[in-house]
């Protein structure tokens, strides 16, 4: 089973990297995972899809565990163990689709997991998670940086939501960046990224950009408009993976926006 699962995960990762296909609209959806888990059909693919989603949202879970006072290594082990636990016990098969959201499901499951001292001790004794999700050093460092940045600013649930928002937009930006790269427009994406992602410095003037890129202002405007539209779709598609309905996409974005404006 593990070999099949690893293969499925790798397939997903390749797809994410644009090697197998390139698409602004990811195919892995939480609702599909839940449905597959319930029906029992193709459980390995459901596991792989869930593992892929978990990979994207590893950092929010890690920051939550860290906010509970665990050390860096313990938090890494616990986060890995949590994923192993979710997959191993097919916890998602018990998820209530009507309540919908992947974010709520993961947070509630993590809280239960952490509250279960026996599970935690057992997994730590095992030396932490050894399977399912390869943990990259860079990923772990980014997650720790995220925790250090926001720790102490707000409560642990809000910290989780904020980290979630960051993981969400990162995934959308990464996907969009891949698309532009595939179209050999990586430089254009990097030059115009500030118009969607903001930043500490004000965006360059159109005059500066038209000179630098050697295009007219009307062409530049058109590029920026298209980039915004494509990013919007990529972001909504990313949210769509974690909720059940289009209405929930709106709710999810509004909720996360609300969390950010509270900090």
């Amino acid at each position, binding site marked *: 089973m593990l070999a099949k699962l690893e293969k499925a995960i790798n397939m997903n990762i390749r797809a994410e990297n644009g090697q197998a296909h390139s698409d602004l609209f990811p195919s892995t959806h939480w609702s599909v995972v839940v449905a597959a888990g319930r029906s029992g059909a193709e459980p390995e693919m459901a596991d792989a899809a869930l593992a892929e989603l978990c990979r994207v949202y590893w950092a929010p879970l890690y920051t939550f565990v860290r906010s509970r006072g665990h050390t860096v290594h313990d938090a890494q082990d616990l986060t890995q163990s949590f994923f192993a636990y979710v997959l191993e016990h097919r916890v998602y098969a018990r998820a209530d689709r009507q309540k919908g959201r992947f974010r709520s499901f993961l947070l509630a499951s993590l809280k239960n997991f952490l509250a279960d001292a026996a599970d935690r001790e057992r997994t730590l004794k095992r030396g932490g998670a050894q399977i399912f999700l390869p943990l990259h050093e860079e990923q772990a460092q980014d997650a720790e940086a995220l925790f250090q940045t926001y720790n102490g600013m707000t409560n642990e649930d809000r910290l989780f939501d904020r980290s979630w928002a960051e993981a969400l937009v990162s995934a959308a930006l990464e996907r969009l960046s891949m698309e532009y790269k595939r179209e050999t427009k990586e430089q254009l994406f990097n030059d115009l990224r500030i118009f969607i992602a903001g*930043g500490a410095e*004000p965006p360059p003037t159109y005059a500066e950009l038209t000179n630098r890129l050697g295009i007219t*202002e009307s062409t530049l405007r058109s590029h920026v408009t298209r980039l915004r539209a494509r990013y919007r779709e990529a972001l909504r598609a990313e949210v769509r993976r974690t909720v059940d309905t289009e209405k929930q996409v709106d709710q999810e974005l509004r909720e996360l*926006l609300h969390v*950010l404006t509270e900090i």
Partner: protein
Amino acid sequence: MRKPLASGVGVCSVCGKPLSAKGDCLTCLLRTGLEELVAKPEPALRAFGDFEVEQRADGSCWELGHGAIGVTYLAADKVLRRRVALKVIEVPSAARGSQAVRDRFLREARAAAALRHPNVAAVFQFGTSPDATHCYYAMELIEGETLAARVRRDGPLNAKEALKIGIQIARALIAAASHDLIHRDLKPSNIMLTNDSGVKVIDFGLAKAITDAGGDMDLTHGEFVGTPTFASPEQFGGGPVDARSDIYALGGTLWFALTGLAPHPGRTLEEIRDRKTRSALPVAQLMARRVPETLVKLLRSSLAIDPGRRPASAREFMEALELCRRNLARRIGGRSEEAALRSEAFARALTDAKARASDPESLQALFDSAAKKAAAVSKKPFKRNWAYLQTMLRLIRAYNRDEYRQVSNDALVWIIAALNYLVDPFDLIPDNTPFLGLVDDAHVVELVTDKTRRTLDAFMTWETATR
């Protein structure tokens, strides 16, 4: 309850919210995902009091802009049958049931609506939706762009333009002072430059009203109300502020207009606050832009940390700006007089051009005549002129072939006038004339952006002598 300031988090230059650890603005990024939603609210939310949000051809709401605090729509006043700008702010769920919050918003908005001045965008009406989910206010609809957008598009302004704008903003502040109103969020994106060269300050006094409507939801975050980059040091403390805070913000706004930069940028709220209170002003930025010494001195005093060292009132500040303008005019007096005379000649050319605009034969004759004039001059110094002229001709021919429909009639008139006058050595054609930038022609871009048209002065001398 207010939350402590974020530590080590950057601040977005667009919306003022904290940046992510990677330097991205999550708020801007998430808001982009909602843009479509914002543009298409539920039908029930299209009407606010006497106002109805207008729709585009595709049925979406006609959004004029959105900021950290709400969305502005083009709307119709159903009673007075006029168009207005309608700002709609969603009230956070926690504050919706509060009568006190509603009363505070209405009180502040009422004070803002009482202010009437040519340099202030008038607030016509305000209110809250029946279900208390939104508050709104209808403002005078202004055709134009913000100062921030102008600088972003065209780069920094010269001292004369900045002073003209600054004086009008100061007049708005004087009017506000007579109503005991403080803006609290004066910044380049709250300054509208109208199509007829006027200036209107928007959102006057509404920062406080909106904050009240939002309960704990401040315009930005933490204890802060306003936009950190342009706010006065005392605003960071959350304590009482007075009109001198607006003078500080106006100083920062003018600094931005002159340099394209904020005087004290920073990646975090704390960094901005520290720079405002500890770092010296980067006056070299003004020097590099050749800002007159008197204006530099005035900006330094307006940006003083201690409010007591700033101009005591908006009137005092405006008088100082007026003095700067007079000094500047004296300095360039001779040149201005000459330019005025030539402007007159150019105005005649413009009138003539308007008559020729719809007559291709007349256009062709005009070009032929201009071409002969140019050919009569020694070639080398006028090489650029020649290329410019040829580009103009290509534009006009293309326009006549319907290939450049995006070139407006106004732009065409400018082109023809330039041809009639042969060239525009005195920068009489505004840089924001629509045809500029529409053409992929390196000569035009170079000539316009580098102001190399000044090299054609010699040609003007020749033309005047042979007239």
